[in-house]
């Protein structure tokens, strides 16, 4: 299989404009003859569905939640980047492009990232026109802040809930098209299979989560905007329902899965409090602008903290190790996410972690409060401090916060070309669901940007190019391919319901998460990954022998829903391990212990690994097949990231 990224010819800055001119158009009168399915209604899905409707296509949109407004984009806090240069501080499209490709450790395509930076400016205009209440200055114009270590202030924000406000904007645009009858919305509906007819994606099979009814939906193209797969770790900052099922079932039908091992582990999350923990809560990394990260210098002191013998305030200044400031004097506490996370793990592995589990480091605001005053710190971070206090029952104004890294975002996803189409004709993937723009590490405030860029400004153009070449003839859901997919879904469901074993779905999910976290988390090595692969295989076999799913299909059955999702995570987990094992270099969120500099920093291997690893499903129990897309860099010079 040859992976054709379909990157347009010409200079970087002209590729997208040229491509937009070259793509074929669907006549306005013909658009109503084409049907498009959009799965997922977060930023990438809702924006695409709304825009398709505005253009005149017939859209069916699906989400598992009770309303499209609840997609997990809503939980993004920090902001959205755009190269507006409103602050006159030297930002530009090229600088946003450069920062993003460098931040991704040179494992993304230049052309995609440049386009992302280009359309970023349109996103802000669009959202403001919808009535999204971004933060403003007293003069009435939009406010910006510097975010995630960026050297310019290009982040637009809406208090600590930018994701919610952007999603409600996209939701409102979607609602308008639902009211017009251009979009038909299917909430509480989950995609369980992809339907291919004559080599083209022509529909999906869904399960109604209230009635259990399995249904087929036919269309001319299918867009997956189903988010990331961080819940393979069980504990993550994702929503409880976030899952890989739609993407994975498409993978089983032939869509390539790219760079699955690229996982972002966010440094500022609230630590695990016990085995009952169901998910992890992230606190905006803006906290690192004023908070100082430290642990005690000695294991002895850490032990006393862990047992509750002493408190943080009992530790003298001289006995504290502000390890980020010490190791990275230039960036200090503002080093990128992967560096901050890995260093927290290092000090905890040394036995210097704090909290009763020893799996936490301090984020201390005492100096900032002394410098700026309590009210200034409260004005900046009040809502985050309140959230922390509510969850931990500790007052961060008085004692330092305890933080620990948690799985947050997955850069890998379905392989797509420049048009956001997977290798399966007619199947597209947008937002976190695809692999395309963040390389091996995503910068802060770039996820919202990519979701909306794909949905509002990229796919509405590129999908036309595909549909223009295709007859408007519809495929009936009586077609054998639909019947086969429906039977496949029912076969999986019936199998899950018939096992009646002794272990719950959550139990298996937690066991998988532990394997992934221990061996395919913040640091990976060949030995551990090989061991993890065997463990996952064993666990998967046990799942299909001993899982307990009760009830029937024809009802609201949350255990059955979870069982479908965990069954897929058990396959994806193994592929992530395969990918991590194959990539014997450290880059971005993927740290291979075998590949470090003498100072224990991540060491890339551009000669051997400057490629996208796209994996093909080879069948049950078969090893996946690796396809490589070489990455070419013509506009940036590859450098080793250094934050010293």
């Amino acid at each position: 299989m040859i992976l054709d990224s379909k990157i347009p010819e010409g200079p970087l800055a002209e590729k997208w404009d040229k491509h937009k001119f070259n793509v074929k158009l669907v006549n306005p009168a013909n658009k109503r003859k084409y049907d498009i399915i959009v799965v997922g209604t977060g930023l990438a899905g809702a924006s695409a569905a709304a825009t398709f409707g505005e253009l005149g296509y017939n859209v069916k949109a699906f989400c598992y939640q009770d309303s499209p407004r609840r997609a997990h984009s809503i939980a993004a806090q920090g902001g959205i980047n755009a190269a507006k240069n409103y602050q006159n501080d030297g930002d530009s499209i090229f600088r946003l492009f450069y920062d993003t490709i460098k931040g991704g450790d040179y494992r993304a395509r230049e052309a995609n990232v440049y386009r992302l930076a280009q359309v970023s400016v349109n996103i802000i205009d669009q959202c403001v026109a919808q009535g999204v209440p971004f933060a403003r200055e007293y003069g009435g114009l939009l406010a910006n802040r510097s975010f995630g270590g960026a050297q310019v202030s290009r982040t637009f924000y809406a208090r600590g809930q930018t994701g919610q406000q952007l999603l409600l904007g996209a939701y409102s645009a979607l609602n308008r098209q639902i009211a017009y009858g251009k979009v038909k919305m299917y909430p509480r509906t989950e995609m369980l299979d992809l339907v291919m007819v004559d080599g083209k994606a022509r529909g999906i099979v869904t399960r109604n989560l209230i009635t259990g009814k399995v249904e087929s939906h036919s269309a001319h193209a299918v867009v997956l905007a189903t988010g990331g797969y961080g819940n393979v770790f069980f504990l993550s900052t994702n929503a409880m329902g976030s899952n890989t099922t739609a993407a994975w079932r498409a993978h089983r039908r032939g869509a390539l899965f790219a760079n699955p091992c690229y996982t972002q582990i966010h440094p500022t999350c609230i630590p695990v409090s016990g085995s009952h923990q169901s998910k992890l809560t992230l606190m905006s990394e803006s906290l690192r602008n004023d908070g100082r990260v430290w642990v005690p210098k000695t294991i002895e002191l850490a032990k006393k903290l862990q047992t509750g013998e002493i408190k943080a305030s009992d530790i003298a200044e001289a006995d504290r190790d502000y390890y980020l400031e010490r190791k990275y004097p230039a960036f200090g506490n503002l080093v990128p996410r992967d560096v901050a996370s890995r260093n927290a793990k290092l000090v905890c592995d040394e036995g210097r972690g704090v909290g009763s589990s020893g799996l936490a480091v301090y984020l201390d605001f005492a100096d900032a409060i002394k410098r700026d005053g309590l009210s200034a710190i409260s004005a900046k971070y009040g809502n985050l401090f309140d959230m922390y206090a509510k969850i931990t029952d500790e007052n961060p104004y008085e004692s330092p916060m305890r933080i620990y890294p948690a799985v947050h975002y997955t850069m890998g996803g379905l392989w797509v070309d420049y048009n956001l189409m997977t290798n399966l004709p007619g199947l597209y993937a947008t937002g976190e669901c695809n692999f395309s723009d963040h390389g091996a590490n995503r910068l802060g405030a770039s996820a919202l940007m990519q979701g909306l860029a794909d949905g509002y400004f990229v796919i509405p153009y590129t999908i036309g190019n595909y549909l223009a070449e295709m007859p408007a003839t519809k495929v009936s859901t009586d077609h054998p391919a639909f019947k086969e997919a429906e039977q496949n879904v029912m076969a999986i469901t019936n199998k899950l319901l018939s096992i009646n074993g002794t272990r719950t779905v959550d139990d298996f999910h937690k066991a998988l998460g532990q394997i992934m976290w221990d061996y395919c988390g913040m640091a990976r090595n060949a030995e551990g990954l090989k061991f993890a692969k065997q463990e996952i295989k064993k666990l998967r076999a046990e799942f299909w022998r001993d899982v307990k799913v009760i009830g029937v299909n024809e009802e609201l059955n949350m255990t059955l829903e979870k069982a479908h999702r965990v069954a897929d995570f058990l396959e994806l987990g193994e592929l992530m391990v395969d990918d991590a094992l194959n990539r014997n270099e450290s880059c971005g969120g993927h740290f291979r212990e075998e590949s470090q500099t003498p100072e224990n920093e991540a060491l890339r291997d551009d000669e051997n690994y400057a490629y996208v690893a796209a994996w093909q499903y080879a069948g049950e129990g078969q090893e996946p097949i690796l396809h490589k897309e070489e990455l070419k860099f013509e506009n940036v010079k590859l450098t080793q990231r250094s934050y010293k």
Partner: protein
Amino acid sequence: MAGNNPNAKLMNLTLKVWRQRNMNTPGQLVTYPVKNISPDMSFLEMLDVVNEELLIKGEDPIAFDHDCREGICGMCSLFINGRAHGPERGTTTCQLHMRSFKDNDTITIEPWRAAAFPVYKDLIVDRSAFDRIQQAGGYVSVNTGGVPDANEIPIPKTIADKAFDAATCIGCGACVAACKNASAMLFVSAKVSQLAMLPQGKVERKTRVENMVAQMDIEGFGACSNTGACAAECPVGISLENIAIMNREYISAKATSENVA
């Protein structure tokens, strides 16, 4: 392994939970004794524990809505001891922790109770009426592209902040559940006043309020009698003032209606 409080005492509780097989079957409160609950657990994690035990026994777990568990998606609900989202103010159920309860407490857990929110199963209700109200006019009619530069629409900070306060509604339905009339006025008014305040929303302000209020009535929500229970129970603090703004918008729109339909 306890987290922040290694000496926290585990609790034993009695739950009385609304169980209802589906929309067409009557439901009832069922009693479940639960043991060894850590005060560090969230309320939903406590229910997770109960459900794991039920499953192992081969009993149907308690169905409840939840997703982000960060207090922002609005998916979780639950009427706990007669209060929407439980005893703490300004808190969604997913952010409620068991330290808000005492050892040996009895906790009654019911779904949102409103004619416009029929029960699907156990504690899960159908809130699609909220979506239909938003579809009736909760938007600014702009297509993608062809909009002015973002900074061409200056908005005074005080107005932007006020609009923001209204925009923070998470659409959970606590206001309806808390209201003795099951009125949706706080929910509807939050969107109406957000968009009425902003220059982008002013163009359609009359038709918007008329259509959204009409849809609210069609859905079967009750009338507002200004008791303020909605705002008191709102987990994100949506102000009662929005209802006053909506009433004014509505009267003014009706007086000079632009609705051609």
